[in-house]
């Protein structure tokens, strides 16, 4: 569909917003794709909550080391300058506000920046939270990477989350396959609409009243 960008393009878009020198946690799942698109020539340090700074790319198959994994329990590499530490130190980095950016997935994000991403509350589902609640309240900037709509076509941007919360008022910005939204005291502001998305159409898709950064000189849009 012409109105959406691919997950890879979205990962590249997010990677482009991460500045030189930033310390970043990419969680598990889709956000880990962003690592593949970080610009060459910048020093961006990746934190993984199981206890490492300076995480490197996926190793060659014969270099897989079961003692060297990321939070998703996938094999990773080790860059020059890397450091290992135990879990309490790792979460002190997160909770203590030492990470510049984290990128999380979402089931829902509310207009006031509440995040729901750990449980659908469905009966019989096995709950698992991991480090999501610590990341949500800990990083200086909390970005969400998600499709705008569920497979059933419902908006993941909502007035109020109906799924169990991960954190309150914690989300800074939401990167979706249709547009990028900033969370502001007055609700979502469309920072950038991809392809032929318009603010009117995004309002229709989300059922929310949206502010337009383009008309207020606070951002730009791509045609």
């Amino acid at each position: 569909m012409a109105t959406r960008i691919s997950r890879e393009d979205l990962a590249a878009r997010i990677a482009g917003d991460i500045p030189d020198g930033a310390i970043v946690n990419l969680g598990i799942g889709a956000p880990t794709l962003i690592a593949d698109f970080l610009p060459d020539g910048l020093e961006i340090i990746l934190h993984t909550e199981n206890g490492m700074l300076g995480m490197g790319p996926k190793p060659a198959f014969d270099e897989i080391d079961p003692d060297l994994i990321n939070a998703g329990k996938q094999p990773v590499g080790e860059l020059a300058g890397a450091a290992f530490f135990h879990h309490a130190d790792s979460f002190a980095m997160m909770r203590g506000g030492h990470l510049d950016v984290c990128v999380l997935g979402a089931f829902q994000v509310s207009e006031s920046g509440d995040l729901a991403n750990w449980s659908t509350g469905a009966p019989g589902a096995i709950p698992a939270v991991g480090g999501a609640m610590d990341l949500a309240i800990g990083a200086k900037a909390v970005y969400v990477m998600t499709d705008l709509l569920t497979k059933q076509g419902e908006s993941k941007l909502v007035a109020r989350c109906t799924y169990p919360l991960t954190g309150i008022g914690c989300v800074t910005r939401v990167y979706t396959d249709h547009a990028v939204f900033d969370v502001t005291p007055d609700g979502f502001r469309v920072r950038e609409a991809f392809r032929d998305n318009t603010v009117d159409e995004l309002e229709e898709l989300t059922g929310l009243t949206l502010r337009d950064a383009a008309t207020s000189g606070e951002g730009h849009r791509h045609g």
Partner: protein
Amino acid sequence: MIDKTMTSAEAAVADIPDGATVMIGGFGRAGQPIELIDALIARGASNLTIINNNAGNGGTGLAALLATGGVRKIICSFPRQSDSWVFDGLYRDGKIELELVPQGNLAERIRAAGAGIGAFFSPTGYGTQLASGKETRSIEGRDYVLEYPIRADFALIGALKADRWGNLVYRKTARNFGPIMASAATTTIVQVDEVVALGAIDPEVVVTPGIFVDRVVAVGERPWIEGGTFVGGVTIEGMPLFDTSRTAFSSTKEA
């Protein structure tokens, strides 16, 4: 003379009783003390409470312990994984109790137990289901949840090397919960690849000082390490590669 080394994993875990609370180190498979867990399974302890970040992977280690039916309750942050079928089945059948704790609160509650902290206020989880019923406080404009320590009767930990005083060094991300769990249990039992001579570990690089360690068992090097050097040749599960054709493996991996 202080000598914490034990001759076997079986001897090291022999006094873990039914009903004990046991911390087990490791994040996924990394750092899981497999030989100690196997010895605990052989001992046949029942009605255990287990503390680990996860709830077992595949059919080995912690998952094998759960499969014995000897675990009454598990305290963890992330039980649901692609290969957690043993736990999944027990949970759905109502045969195991789950206390879900956000990962950083789990780590800090363990650290607090080892550090003699009575309780602490954490911002993690405030306003969520996982903090329901817990005392809260606003401090300098931020909201916190009161969290209590988690301590254990025993901790089972995997490390790389120890000396006979119990000083430990770990390897890469297999460190994870080891240092904090070592401090939070009445009796801390550690399996290592190798026990080295006193003085062979540089005091500047000791990660867990021996004061936190009670028993040490050498179990030999894991398949991906030879003579202290990483040699690879295993899958992420630590299983040896039987097919040595890298080309075949690379093409499979990319498929």
